[in-house]
């Protein structure tokens, strides 16, 4: 039985893993996609569906962690303009 706390913790793990991505665009996408994914399934009540969604989330966490390792091997050489604090 997956409870709300576990779901929130999975969401946070996905966000923290995505934060390590060196490329601005992919980092923002990871954040956006995490929230979209969790919000889409926010109102599920059927236990089996909740378990399935949670398992899918765990799989995606593995994907993000693998992708982070790959991207860290070849980080971008310049900062994206969106990352600069221009006043």
């Amino acid at each position, binding site marked *: 039985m997956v409870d*709300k*706390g576990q779901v*929130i*913790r999975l*969401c*946070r793990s996905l*966000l923290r893993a995505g*934060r390590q991505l060196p490329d601005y665009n992919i980092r923002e996408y990871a954040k956006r996609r995490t*929230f979209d994914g*969790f*919000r889409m399934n*926010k109102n599920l009540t059927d236990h089996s569906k909740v378990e399935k969604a949670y398992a899918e989330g765990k799989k995606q966490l593995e994907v993000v962690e693998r992708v982070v390792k790959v991207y860290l091997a070849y980080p971008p050489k310049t900062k994206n303009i969106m990352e600069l604090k221009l006043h």
Partner: protein
Amino acid sequence: MALRNAVLRHLRVPVQNLAVRGSNQSQIGFLGSIRAFSSHDDHLSKQDVVDRVLDVVKSFPKVDPAKVTPEVHFQKDLGLDSLDTVEIVMAIEEEFKLEIPDKEADKIDSCSLAIEYVFNHPMSS
């Protein structure tokens, strides 16, 4: 220990001061900014923490900035859900360069708790 930290922190100040006040500033100038035996300088002021936390909350798209006060509750007063709370807490982590463990982050559900946590955390910057 606090004196050492205070001294080390002030030793780093001259580079910024030189840039701001012009490079003809004499080296003696920075010694005047060390306050001996003061252990309060190496931390953010409460007002600074309050302002920055409120800015983070106000810049969240689902939040009405007019409703944001230092005591406001994310879910009860601002009508957010738990995922929005997670998003706000992550944004606060990024603003203050902190890593808040899950157990503590679960408890933060209002501006006042967030401000208190950040203010009491030794690594906030």
